[in-house]
């Protein structure tokens, strides 16, 4: 293998599994260390800088970082990255002094943001410090998008939402609330320098089976129903409720129904339990609240009598893998099942839907009604129009909306400056900074903590089920947060090897608790992976290979299971190993970290 180029910014970035997996590349280990040091305000700002909504995300994020966390491979359960983010938000102090200044004198460019969901808000935050005049058009009376209209208060209290939404609006956004956009042409005629479409994927899917139309009065589209609950138009639900669907919307619908007085609530899912789209923890919460989830039951027809819904017939299937390993549904032959229902909530997916964008404005759409976009710049086929969040590639989540927004903001800025959106895009970079403070002294807590993941305390069930506004999770207090923070392995403190210092004494090989390090003859990667101290079977994780050493061997380190304990560097007599913090420079406008 060729020697590894550790100055390629992506090399060590991949080692920080959580940060690599986070769409916005939040510097997780850095903020966790700040939490351990009780520096909550700085921890909060570091988050705010990259993901824009730490308090909201610390409660609701889809957390792609957690399944990626190294701790899953070295021990069992990931670090509670998401809930630690909430600790930073809950215990932060006054952040006013940390906020980027917004110039009074504007730079002369006017940008229109369509919709006031997380995507548009994040674009506003990035552009305002550069002096842009930012206008936001939103049909609802308040900002936040689906964070406000969909995520129920028992998961995300209103004050947490409002604090982070208002923080951005107060930076100087020109808000046009209650303004439903009915024509993109009209918008374009307003002569803004750039447009960002952040109107989400607002249409809930429906189901066309017998009896649907006749039972219409008793069937609601999940997301429309949730938003009417959020705005206080719906305050109760009666009788037996069936929620159809297996995603997070279904989980929010069933838990909300339970709180609004339903006599009984059942979730019925077309597919098996394991392949449901809802996050593991959302399913767990629903079941803990006593809501049965019934799987492998595709609906056949709605039964109604005199305009009143009676129930639903379901067929029975099972899912078996076909020759390509893909699951397919096969009838089990059991008789169909009838379930009584007075009200049905349909939570079977969302779609992009922008009927108000005329199709003759140079903005092309693909066959799924998604805009045709450049995946790096988020520019549409109309150079002035950008998309981000759910409106870009279909429904995702808040953290993806933030990530899209950063890129779109850079593009808008480059365009306004007359620069090329790709060639002039600022590059990624990495700095490596030694953490050595003295002999056997490191600037980070290198000791490995074998503790198990700390559980998040919950409010009492009877309290939460009787009031939709009572938050279910109480969050870690400072003490529990500090415990959980200790579990982080500091994956950004990298093991950096300097060939010319190594005397091939084997001390690092002997001490490494995870058998990461080997000194072997070089070879092709696949074969080399089999010849190490321990076989390097995780192909997703790179091998760090040195130049040839005096014995002609090379040092090969399997990054997969390294605990970043620094013992290799402690035992190295010549400092050929050093523990260095990798700080990634991920281009972003108005970054507080830069």
């Amino acid at each position, binding site marked *: 293998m060729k020697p590894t180029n550790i100055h390629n910014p992506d090399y060590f970035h991949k080692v920080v599994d959580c940060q690599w997996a986070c769409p916005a590349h939040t510097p997780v280990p850095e903020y966790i260390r700040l939490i351990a040091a009780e520096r909550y305000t700085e921890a909060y700002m570091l988050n705010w800088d990259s993901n824009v909504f730490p308090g909201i995300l610390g409660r609701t994020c889809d957390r792609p970082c957690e399944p990626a966390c190294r701790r899953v491979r070295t021990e069992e359960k990931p670090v509670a990255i998401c809930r630690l983010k909430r600790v930073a938000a809950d215990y932060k102090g006054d952040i006013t002094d940390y906020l980027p200044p917004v110039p009074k004198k504007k730079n002369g460019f006017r940008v229109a943001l369509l919709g006031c969901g997380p995507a548009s808000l994040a674009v506003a935050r990035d552009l305002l410090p550069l002096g842009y005049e930012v206008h936001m058009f939103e049909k609802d009376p308040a900002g936040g998008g689906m964070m406000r209209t969909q995520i129920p208060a028992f998961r995300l209290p209103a004050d947490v939402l409002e604090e982070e939404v208002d923080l951005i609006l107060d930076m100087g956004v020109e808000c046009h609330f209650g303004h439903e956009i009915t024509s993109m042409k009209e918008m374009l005629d307003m002569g803004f320098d750039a447009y960002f479409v952040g109107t989400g994927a607002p249409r809930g899917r429906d189901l066309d089976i017998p009896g649907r139309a006749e039972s219409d009065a008793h069937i609601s589209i999940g997301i429309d129903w949730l938003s009417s609950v959020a705005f206080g138009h719906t305050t109760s639900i009666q009788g037996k409720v069936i929620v159809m669907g297996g995603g997070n919307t279904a989980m929010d619908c069933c838990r909300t129904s339970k709180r609004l007085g339903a006599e009984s609530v059942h979730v019925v899912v077309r597919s098996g339990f394991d392949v449901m789209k809802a996050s593991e923890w959302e399913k767990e919460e629903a079941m803990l609240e006593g809501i049965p989830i019934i799987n492998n039951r595709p609906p056949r027809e709605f039964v109604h009598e005199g305009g009143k819904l009676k129930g639903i017939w379901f067929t029975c299937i099972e899912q078996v893998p076909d020759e390509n390993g893909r699951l397919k549904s096969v009838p089990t032959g059991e008789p169909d099942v009838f379930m009584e229902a007075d009200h049905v909530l349909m939570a079977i997916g969302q779609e992009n839907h922008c009927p108000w964008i005329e199709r003759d404005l140079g903005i092309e759409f693909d066959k799924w009604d998604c805009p045709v976009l450049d995946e790096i710049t988020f520019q549409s086929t109309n150079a002035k129009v950008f998309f981000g969040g759910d409106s870009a590639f279909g429904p995702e989540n808040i953290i993806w909306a933030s990530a899209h927004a950063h890129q779109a903001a850079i593009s808008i800025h480059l365009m306004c400056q007359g620069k090329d959106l790709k060639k002039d895009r600022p590059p990624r970079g990495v700095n490596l900074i030694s953490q050595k403070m003295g002999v*056997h002294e490191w600037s980070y807590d290198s000791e490995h903590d074998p503790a198990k993941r700390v559980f998040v305390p919950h409010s009492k069930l009877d309290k939460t089920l009787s009031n939709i506004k009572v938050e279910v999770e109480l969050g870690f207090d400072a003490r529990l947060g500090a415990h959980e923070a200790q579990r982080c392995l500091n994956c950004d403190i990298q093991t950096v090897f300097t060939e010319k210092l190594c005397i091939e004494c084997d*001390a690092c090989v002997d*001490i490494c608790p995870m058998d990461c390090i080997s000194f072997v003859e070089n070879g092709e990667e696949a074969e080399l992976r089999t010849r190490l101290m*321990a076989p390097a079977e995780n192909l997703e994780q790179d091998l760090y290979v040195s130049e040839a050493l005096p014995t002609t061997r090379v040092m090969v380190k399997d990054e997969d299971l390294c605990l970043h304990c620094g*013992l290799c560097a402690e035992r190295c007599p010549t400092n050929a190993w050093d523990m260095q913090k990798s700080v990634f420079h991920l281009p972003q406008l108005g970054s507080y970290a830069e």
Partner: protein
Amino acid sequence: MTFVAKPTARHPSLKINEIGLTRRDYEGSVSTLCAGCGHDSVSAAIVSACAELGLPPHKFLKISGIGCSSKTPNYFLGHSHGFNSVHGRMPSVATGASLANKELYCLGISGDGDSASIGFGQFAHIVRRRINMLYIVDNNGTYGLTKGQFSATNDLGSTSKRGVPNLYEPIDLVSMAMQIGATFVARSFSGDKRQLVGLIKAGLMHRGFSFIDVISPCVAFNNHNGSTKSFAHMRNMQREVVSADYVAPQVEMQIDYAAGETEDVTMPDGAHLRLRKLHSDYDPHDRLHAINYLGERGREGEVVTGLLYVKSDTENTHDILNLVDTPLNSLDEEDLCPGLDALESINQSFR
């Protein structure tokens, strides 16, 4: 010195041996020796060898003298018996312990100062007595613990860190051991684990006195240009002649090997010692040949390593003294004090 405890987390694919343990279960506490010390590699090799053999740690007896090398039993086999004795006196204690309980695997760790200087007399006699044990010398050519004086194994003319030459002839413990009765004699290098682990396994399972002289560089005082016990010197001048590994009884003997290359020597327990000759005219069964060969190559500055001499059908102290089969520490009072009648008959035999 490292203060951080070694994490208990381990690689998920680490091998589990016949008695359900992994290599990590054979470790001791984290070493307090200088970072990079060759002695730590010897400890790591012992850990691997014991884990590969699948021996129960509590069946081990570790005995040492004084020196950095003699401190190392603390850093391997944490769950075994040990005795850190007096400078140069490990052989006496090992002799007593081995006689008291012959069922333990007796592992002596010493240094070149401990065995070739202050303890040279003791060394000679434990070899002569053929105690059933593995005796390892971590040979760094210096008194590491007392900050780098020349030891008796240091080569004539090799220099100290400050450039002062050594004025005396070296003692070669390997030749010495062969001359006075050791039946398993090897030399190795701490930086060559492949060789060292095999030798330790073979040496532990050899019935009789096994001796391994491990050149084990001292990074603090004897790893400079001018030293003949440095990593660089060993990497340039090491010449392996025979490699050895222990092959458990249940594994089949190797028969169809290229002539002269591999040889399986059967051991009393039905296992065998698999020897691989890397040098065609070296014969590890001929003591005089071996001693001569070492001398010749030594004159050229080469360091001959590997299994240098082995004799498998031999007697050890227990056989020589014709001791009872029961370990002496398990004999009860009745066996030890058989009564007046027995005394009378013994006395009678002398009349």
